[in-house]
């Protein structure tokens, strides 16, 4: 079950969506079986997903789970 987000938990869902043909939040929601509101909350760091949902998100993007969720500072998305 999801829980209150930890302050240090970050994710790259928004970045990964745009890297995958600018997938919309609704498309991602449909693929992983949640509502669009949940995707919005995830991207904003307001909600931590359950482990099964985290795996489904990673599988949807074809990456490892640690490439979607990180503890600590988010990696720079626009390196100079």
């Amino acid at each position, binding site marked *: *079950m*999801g829980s209150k987000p930890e302050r240090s938990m970050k994710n790259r869902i928004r970045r990964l969506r745009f890297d995958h043909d600018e997938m919309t939040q609704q498309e991602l*929601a*449909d693929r992983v079986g*949640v509502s669009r509101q949940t995707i*919005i909350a995830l991207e904003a760091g307001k909600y931590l*997903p*359950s482990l099964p949902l985290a795996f489904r998100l990673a599988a949807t993007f074809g990456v490892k789970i640690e490439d979607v969720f990180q503890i600590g500072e988010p990696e720079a998305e626009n390196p100079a």
Partner: protein
Amino acid sequence: MTALQKYAWYNLGVIALTLSTIGLLYPVAGKGALGGFGFLGLMGLGPLFFRKKSGKVMMDERDESIAKRSWNFAFAIFWVVAVMFAALVSTSVYGSEGAVPVWIVQSSVFVGMIVIYAMSSIAILVQYGRGAADGQ
């Protein structure tokens, strides 16, 4: 708006209808106005908001988490209110050897239901309100 949010607003609407009906009828009908509690039966239609629609997720894990926390909060509040009335208010109003009128006992069942559903619905809406802005 999710199905759970619609459900919460619906319950608050039914509660408002019930209380306003009782409030309006009480000066005219006296205790007969308590029949207005019958409107609470409309809450039985609430589950219709969760009917499965093709291709649409009606309730996901976040909704379930919010619903669970809301029920926990509502029952905690209900317990506090119930204990306060049973142990403190009833004693101070009717005395330790007094008798509580039957209509109050009957009404307390409906009031308890209102407290639980109102607190749960408010908690649901507050939790969604704290979530992210609804933007792409």
